[in-house]
């Protein structure tokens, strides 16, 4: 039935204007749909790639993020003795006790205050995060008021250039290095000696501990030890999972907002397609009558019109996806509502999003074309022919 498909396609081409308008409407909706998914995907990828699969993060039970977590020194000591923890070439455990504190600092350009994450780091903290590269300066000396800052912090915040002094927690901190972690969350953090930070901020407990597994398979064992041992009783998560959870709330928020927006828009686009297809059916009454007279079955007529509106959807979908793919060049900087820190990420197009967007477009075309196609196929042959 290639000719029938050709027939549908040529009809779309024949009424260029309405086809263009209808597909543009659909393209716009697909664009919104796709970009929302891309935003949420970009966020997720940024946060997930912040984590290492073989790293385990230990936090207080029920606290999703380390800002709200507390790990007592006693418990940290117990965890450090676990035999499943990897050991580096110098015989040291790849284990770090960390503290997370949120502070507010003015942005360089606008002077408006924004949240920043301060991470008190241990000797092995940098080693545990291979994505983190020092791009300027050196690592901080432990025991001194020295910090290294993430690239975005250095770019955006007052007094965060190499050699500058940052003032917080009633102390001056010398910026001795700048690090880059790609587009990962760490780029919006300031790192310094965990003991200095705890003293400065008057924190008696760590926020979290992190360690590398000797063997990835040991995770379940370690997890049950940490969670079941009454002396520890903390929560252990793979670092990837930990960051994925962090992205979930924001992803969900974006998705719900975006999808309710697209639902409203899509109703418009579906109605647009419906009007287009109804007028196509009305304009081609005698054509439909002729096809039926020649012996084409109702279902062929139904199929031809349905295919036509499906094509509208497909074209709209392709245009929408192409449009949305350009947003990949945009970088978004926003607040991570869970840690209240700055977060930088970009729209990320994945195959899954392309497929979902195309299905959505096809769905709009089909829904819009359904009734008109049914009407077309049910037309009485004789009265259709008389309408010539």
């Amino acid at each position, binding site marked *: *039935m290639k*000719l*029938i498909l*050709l*027939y549908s396609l*040529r*009809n779309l*081409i*024949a009424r260029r204007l309405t086809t263009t308008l209808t597909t543009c409407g659909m393209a716009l909706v697909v664009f919104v749909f796709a970009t929302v998914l891309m935003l949420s995907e970009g966020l997720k990828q940024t946060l997930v790639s912040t984590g290492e699969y073989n790293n385990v993060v230990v936090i207080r039970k029920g606290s999703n993020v380390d800002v709200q977590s507390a790990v007592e020194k006693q418990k940290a000591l117990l965890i450090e003795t676990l035999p499943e923890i990897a050991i580096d070439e110098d015989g040291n455990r790849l284990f770090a006790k960390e503290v997370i504190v949120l502070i507010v600092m003015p942005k360089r350009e606008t002077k408006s205050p924004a949240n920043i994450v301060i991470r008190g780091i241990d000797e092995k903290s940098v080693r545990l995060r291979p994505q983190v590269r020092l791009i300027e300066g050196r690592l901080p000396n432990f025991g001194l008021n020295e910090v290294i800052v993430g690239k975005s912090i250095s770019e955006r915040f007052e007094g965060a250039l190499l050699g500058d002094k940052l003032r917080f927690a009633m102390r001056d901190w010398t910026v001795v290095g700048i690090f880059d972690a790609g587009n990962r969350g760490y780029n919006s953090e300031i790192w310094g000696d965990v003991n200095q930070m705890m003293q400065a901020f008057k924190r008696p407990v760590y926020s979290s501990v992190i360690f590398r597994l000797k063997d990835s398979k040991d995770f379940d064992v370690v997890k049950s030890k940490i969670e079941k041992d009454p002396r520890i009783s903390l929560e252990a998560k793979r670092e990837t999972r930990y960051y994925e959870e962090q992205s979930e709330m924001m992803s969900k928020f974006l998705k719900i907002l975006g999808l309710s927006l697209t639902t409203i828009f899509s109703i418009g686009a579906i109605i647009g397609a419906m009007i287009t297809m109804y007028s196509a059916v009305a304009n081609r009454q*005698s*054509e439909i*009558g*002729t*096809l*039926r*007279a*020649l*012996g*084409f*079955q*109702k279902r062929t007529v139904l199929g031809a019109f349905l295919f036509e509106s499906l094509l509208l959807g497909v074209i709209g979908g392709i245009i929408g996806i192409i449009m949305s793919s350009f947003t990949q060049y945009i970088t978004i900087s926003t607040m991570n509502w869970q840690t209240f820190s700055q977060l930088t990420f970009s729209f990320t197009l994945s195959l899954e999003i392309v497929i979902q967007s195309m299905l959505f477009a096809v769905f709009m075309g089909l829904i819009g074309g359904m009734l008109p196609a049914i009407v077309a196929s049910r037309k009485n*042959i*004789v009265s259709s*022919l008389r309408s*010539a």
Partner: protein
Amino acid sequence: MKEPVVSIKNICKAYQKGSETIPVIHDITFDIIDGDFLSLMGPSGSGKTTLLNLIAGIDKPDCGEIIVSGINITRLSESELSRWRAINVGFIFQFYNLIPVLTAFENVELPLLLSPLSKSQRREHVISALRVVDLLDRIDHKPKELSGGQQQRVAIARAIVTDPAIIVADEPTGDLDRKSATDVLNLMTRLNDEFGKTIIMVTHDMRAAKRAKTIKYLDKGYLNDSPANTDL
């Protein structure tokens, strides 16, 4: 004596207009023999198109039977009837009814899509049908790019391409100038003479009707062998 290809027995047809019932065909019985060229004449609104549609199986009578080549088409279901039309009936309309977005070739090929023919076989059939109507030089033209007469010839090619048992034509020259009308009528005469096609043609053009072997007159839903007195 030739066999009747179409046998019409006591058919009637009425249309519903609101609460009113408009009788269009009253108890008509007649046969059309194989190879006939029948012309149906009568004033406007006398039921010519309705009768033709009933014979062609795109409309159903309220009573009576229509038997075409041994098949009682009034008993067929809608989809059976569709299949039957595709094989047995060639249609020629007053306004040609070509599909605007398809070329002459594709328009003629259209009814063959319902046959089991292969692509190359279809091509052969289309080419020979277009040769009969002398339009081989226009196969890639869209209907818009053809004159009325040429469009009607494409429509004739489409009507004969499946080699149907009967060809029905509703005022085939009604929209044509004299010259084109003559061409079309010549063609139809040739189909009847040379190819032995049974043709049923509705017309109110006397010149057209004269080409037919048999002329029947419809008047207010009744079929006569001679024109009613009121008819001019």
